[in-house]
């Protein structure tokens, strides 16, 4: 793939990520009727909303208990997903900030190959403040 092609592809991905709200709390809540799910709860944490979903995953005769934590902002955008397997600790499964950063870094590399003015281009990308605050929240909680 040539450079302009992969840049278009990356820009499309950035737009897609920006427009993707992620699985909505209502869709998660509906899952309680599925046999795998044992508990689904929601609460407010300051300016964020937290959904905790517990379910069992069966592989053959082995069962694992999985707890997922979904963090949303006020606009119902999914910001972060944490995952907890059996008795282990919560680990970060996905964060919007990291995902966006990774895409921007790829874009930076691609643009770098063309020798364009990087800071100016990055300056033209919008930033949503609350996405970054999710990290702060973890420190507080």
């Amino acid at each position, binding site marked *: 793939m040539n450079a302009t092609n992969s840049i278009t592809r990356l820009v499309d*991905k950035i737009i897609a990520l920006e427009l*993707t709200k992620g699985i909505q709390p209502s869709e*998660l809540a509906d*899952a309680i009727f599925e046999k795998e799910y044992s508990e689904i709860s929601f609460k407010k944490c300051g300016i964020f909303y937290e959904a905790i979903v517990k379910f069992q*995953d069966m592989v053959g005769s082995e069962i694992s208990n*999985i707890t997922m934590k979904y963090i949303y902002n006020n606009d119902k955008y999914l910001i972060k997903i944490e*995952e907890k*397997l059996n008795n282990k600790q919560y680990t970060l499964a*996905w964060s919007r900030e990291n995902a966006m950063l990774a895409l921007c870094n790829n874009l930076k590399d691609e643009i770098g190959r063309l020798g364009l003015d990087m800071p100016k281009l990055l300056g033209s990308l919008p930033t949503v403040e609350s996405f970054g605050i999710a990290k702060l929240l973890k420190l507080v909680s």
Partner: protein
Amino acid sequence: MFEKKRAELTSSVDQYDDKFAGMPEHLKNAAKEAIKKAEYDEISKEVDKELIRLRPDVARKQMRETIKSKAENTVSDLLSDYNKDAKGNDLYNKFKYVLPYIKENTTNDGVLVAFINMKLYQKFGKVTDRSNEILIKSISEIDVIVKELRGMLNERN
């Protein structure tokens, strides 16, 4: 940039306006909402992380399915590259020391799949203990294992 895309989506909904002619107003709006949601869902597919748009159990099942089908596909590629019969059992002798639990009548495809699973187990542990992140890594790890398998098959042929 994002606003432009949003506007694009809205106008793509509007282009169906004439199709709704004669439809009661409340149904028209419902139909428009549904189309809009479908358009956004389509865009979401661009984001290659299933976890953020699917229910967690579904995302997990899908990932396990991908691992399984990828292992099966690469095994059938290997078998045809090395001219082995999938249901034969001549690979047993080559692998009996690395895979103690295979039996003399284990078929060739079974031997190779068992080898891939064993390698994944050694590296990442039980499937039930793997997080989403690790499941994704397992998928790409199969390529590494296949290289090793090719080496082994070359070596003793």
